[in-house]
């Protein structure tokens, strides 16, 4: 009898402890390889060479002549590319919204741009946008004999170019996601809208968009987070410093300027700024996705 109770209580003990044993490795891993480096960067950013408290590091970044342009360019990229991408993707998804022969193939093709490593995307557009690249060649075959010097333009035209490239990379994938959302909307719901006298735009605005809203919101923020971190295509196309953006500055100071004694501080400063911006966006995302709430009961 006593043995049985002990066996029972020991089993109860193990059932209680098992989940903690299972999550222990993650907790330890994140403490060592995530929390510690993040913490040390934040603390380190408030210290000078002798270890005393200072705002010097931040001042150095804020007075960097490329800081304001980098911040501005990043903001423009994020705002314009994300807005443009979602409007166009939604438009395309609404146009395609039906089942059709070959849709499986089409949907996979649409995933390819997003799946490509950014180095490959860079290779694609670098070989395309040089003066004798494939884009000018294609235009030549179509009758435009004048070469266009895509990469020689002003900062604004380069920004526009990067937005277009990002749009090419992202729109197909966003379109698929919205398409999946659209196809989950029951037909009856839409039809009800028409029965009550709504036209297409009303149904779109009052029924379709609200139903899609959660999908759109989460996808927008995930896109926002990756748009903040665009840099590689820019550097491959126009090199460092011509179109400064925040993450590009980190690599610039760490790799190109690694000889300077301020370079590590500069790189850390930019790192913290990027981290802060992304973290705010991430918190917004988590709020929207309901991660702040209690989790559902486990079966």
């Amino acid at each position, binding site marked *: 009898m006593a043995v049985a109770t002990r066996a029972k209580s020991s089993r109860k003990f193990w059932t209680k402890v098992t989940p903690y044993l299972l*999550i222990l490795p993650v907790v330890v891993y994140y403490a060592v*390889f995530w929390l510690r480096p993040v913490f040390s960067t934040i603390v380190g950013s408030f210290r000078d060479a002798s270890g005393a408290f200072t705002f010097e590091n931040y001042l150095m970044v804020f007075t960097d002549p490329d800081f304001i342009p980098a911040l501005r360019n990043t903001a423009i990229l994020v705002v314009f590319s994300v807005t443009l991408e979602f409007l166009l993707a939604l438009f395309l998804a609404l146009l395609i919204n039906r089942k059709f022969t070959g849709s499986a193939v089409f949907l996979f093709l649409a995933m390819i741009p997003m799946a490509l490593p*950014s180095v490959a995307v*860079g*290779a694609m557009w670098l070989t395309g946008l040089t003066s004798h690249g*494939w884009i000018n060649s294609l235009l030549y075959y179509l009758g435009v004999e004048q070469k266009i010097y895509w990469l020689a333009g002003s900062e604004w035209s380069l920004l526009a170019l990067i937005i277009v490239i990002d749009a090419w990379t992202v729109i197909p994938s966003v379109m698929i996601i919205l398409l999946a959302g659209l196809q989950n909307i029951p037909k009856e719901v839409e039809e009800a809208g028409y029965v009550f006298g709504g036209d297409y735009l009303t149904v779109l605005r009052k029924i379709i968009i609200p139903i899609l809203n959660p999908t759109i919101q*989460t996808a927008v923020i995930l896109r926002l987070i990756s748009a903040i971190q665009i840099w590689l295509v820019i550097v491959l196309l126009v090199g460092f410093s011509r179109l400064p953006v925040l993450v590009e500055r980190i690599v610039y100071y760490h790799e190109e300027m690694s000889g300077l004694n301020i370079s590590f501080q500069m790189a850390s400063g930019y790192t913290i700024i990027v*981290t802060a911006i992304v973290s705010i966006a991430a918190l917004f*995302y988590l709020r929207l996705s309901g991660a702040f709430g209690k989790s559902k009961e486990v079966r």
Partner: protein
Amino acid sequence: MVKKPVKFGKLIRRTIFYLFVTSLAVVILLPVYFLVSLSFLSTREAYAFPLPIAPALKIKYSMTHGERGYLLSVYDSFDGEYQTVLDTNELEKISEYMRYQLGAPMSIPEIEEQISVLESGTDPVEFSSRKNLWLNYSTFFKITRNALPALLRSLQIAAMTIIISIIIGGMAGYAFARYTFAGRDALKFSILFVRMFPGVAIALPMVIILANIGFYDRPIGLSLVYSIGSIALTIWITASIFLGIPVTLEEAAVVFGATKFQAFLRVTLPLALPGLAAAAMYTFLGAWNETVSAIILTQFNPTFSVVVYQSLLGSVGQVNLAAAGGLVMAFPSVVFTFFIRRYINQMWGGMTI
């Protein structure tokens, strides 16, 4: 079989729809097509303007007597005529030109054979040789001397990242799917947060941490960094997989005398394998595609993506080789994406555990 009559208007609408979808597919694939095509172009083709729409498969030559020796001309399909490229009496030079500029190697005896035809009175002599389409790929690995070791290193890093994330992430995923425990919500929240945390934020402080434990500029160092994001992802994928496998199956196994661990090993794990494979492929993609941390955390032992990045950055000279490197980079990503396309779409809809 009776065919239903298709209405005319419907037919037109369907045609327009397919035209629309096809043109979208063309816009998506056009840059990809040109990168592929470029990687098969010879150096001579790659520097022509306009670029050929498709790589030549065969090079047509015409040879006659020139001022300095033999005058070699190459057929240009765009102009539709032969263009003189070389005037020399050194056969090695001709052979080298054919190999490196035209990508269609011919050995010296083969050239001598054509010359003897020329000498016997057929002037000019015309002949052709097949282009070696894969030449750019082999040249890329030959010229970029650290490319092959970097490729192997990238695979090694990906493999180690997969092992770390599947073990650590899989365990936690199981805990999330099967147990309710205190601190569950806090942990869930931090996992989601870590998932979105920019990788570059970890890379810089990691330089010092990895240097202290001797892992800087080594594959293990990078896989430790990549695991941070991919563990979070693996937890998410595995938790949803384990949730989908009824707990009653495990309970049944226990009733038949298995221990809980045996039940997991024999019943749940085999059922979860496809999902675990997806998580592994996802991890592979992350590790394979990543560039910024790799640039910061390596010095003499770069990953393949860094090598391709550097060859692109420095090589306005050799676009066809850079294209080949970029495609080697792209190939595994596209293949793995095909296998896990279902999960990728779910990711975007929002991550919940």
